[in-house]
């Protein structure tokens, strides 16, 4: 049942962050799934989307999948593998820690990623999911 019930704002354990230069402040669930599924590759202004992720077993990755994208980490992995090993799409960039992920997103134009808790003074944009 957990899957089907959107979790309310304050209880969320993961936040989607992006490079400060990207245009949108919010994403629809469909667009977020499309971006993290590596099917959508450019922002509305034409900038290449660079997706940064944590390793599959990382709890924050699990939280992104279940709470934000409404799917399970194994499904995202299967979807990436189907694309990557048939040449249809590229894989996201995997980093080992949230700190590294924050640094890479802040420094890479067009980047998107996620951390457990972003703070107001972090050098990234926090994206809402509508």
């Amino acid at each position: 049942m957990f899957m089907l019930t959107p979790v309310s704002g304050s209880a969320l354990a993961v936040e989607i962050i992006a490079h400060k230069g990207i245009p949108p402040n919010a994403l629809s669930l469909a667009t977020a799934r499309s971006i993290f599924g590596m099917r959508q590759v450019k922002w509305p202004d034409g900038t290449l989307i660079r997706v940064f992720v944590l390793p599959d077993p990382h709890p924050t990755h699990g939280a992104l999948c279940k709470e934000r994208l409404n799917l399970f980490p194994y499904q995202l992995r299967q979807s990436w593998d189907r694309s990557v090993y048939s040449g249809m799409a590229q894989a996201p960039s995997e980093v080992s820690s949230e700190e590294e992920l924050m640094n890479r997103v802040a420094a890479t134009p067009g980047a998107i990623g996620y951390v457990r808790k972003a703070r107001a003074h972090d050098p990234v944009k926090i994206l809402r999911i509508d």
Partner: protein
Amino acid sequence: MIRSRFSALIRWAPSLFFWTMVFAPSVHGVELGEGLQAHGFISQGMSLTSDNNFGGNSDSGPAWDLREAGANLSWRPTPDWLISGQALARWAGETDNGDLRLDYGFVDRTLLADGETQVGVRLGKLKNPLGFYNTTRDVAHTRPGIIMPQSIYMDRGRNFWLVASGLSLYGNREHANNAVSWQISAFEPEVDDSDLNYLMLGRDFGGEFHGRSSWLGQIMYEREGGLWRAGLSLGDLAIKYRPGVVDPFNAGHTDLSTWVLSLEHNSENWSVTAEYGQTEVRSREYGIPIVERDNTTEAWYVQATRRFPGDWQVFLRYDVFYFDKSDHSGEDFASIAGANPWIRYAKDWTLGVRKDIDRWTLSAEWHQIDGTAWLSPADTPYNQQSQEWDMLLLQAAWRF
């Protein structure tokens, strides 16, 4: 001299590359530069059978002749262009000898991308979309077991169904709870494979098949991020035969109309997958009546996979194939052709276990099989095929 050095380089470069990667830091894939990525995979299997040979001489002891190695590059120079290619070597008993080949290689141009809708076109050598798994069937960790469900994804017909040079239009559209993706391809099938001679004509007299204009399309629907997935693949494939020097067959041609229905349910711990397909085979002008008998194959499987903590999985699968849906027992064919009826069907119960450790996948599975329809006569000649047989498969696979 230069040529032999070059071929030695070609031979050793992939293994050097792989072993470098095995000891490289634990990440998926390698970013070689701006927009340039490399990925790869390698697997080694072992087969042991009670009767019949599969993946080497498995009837007389463990056979180690199931192996795959592949590496791919993809380059996105701008957001709208993607160039992808993969090299593959595959070993499978007498049916594949490890020749290095281009697995796919194409250019992809995005025509439309507005956030929730994408449309694009691909040109080059492309994997054929057929069922859930055809496009990555040689990549061990993407398969639903050590071997594919042979009913829908028969290894004997692998080369024919796998890949073809042509043009493909694709698209997808996502809503909050529904997503639809589709693609349609026009191509000529790749058919330089003696296994196909056995499959189409029952014998190999050294003739060759050639591809004719064909098409294949697929539509996939996903509900709630993949809680439910459903798909329909269908197409018409056409080939013509050029007889060998001494060959009883004339220059005939064969048309294959195929469709596959796919359905999957995914929850946190369970996945249940079922696929059902038929292929109508019409052969003409070969001059041999038994080959020109129209037949429609029937294929289906159901698989339930349970995931356990610690990256363990256990699955149970029942997989059924009939060469002729109106002759399930194979008796009609046997009485005409004077062959054993069980070469015309196969019913396979499989129990499998899989453990993932970082980039490694270790698997074992037990098959209990009635019938030999998906055995290659190159491994086990028809008249030596036993009806009821068991098979143990083990596999270690690694990817980056």
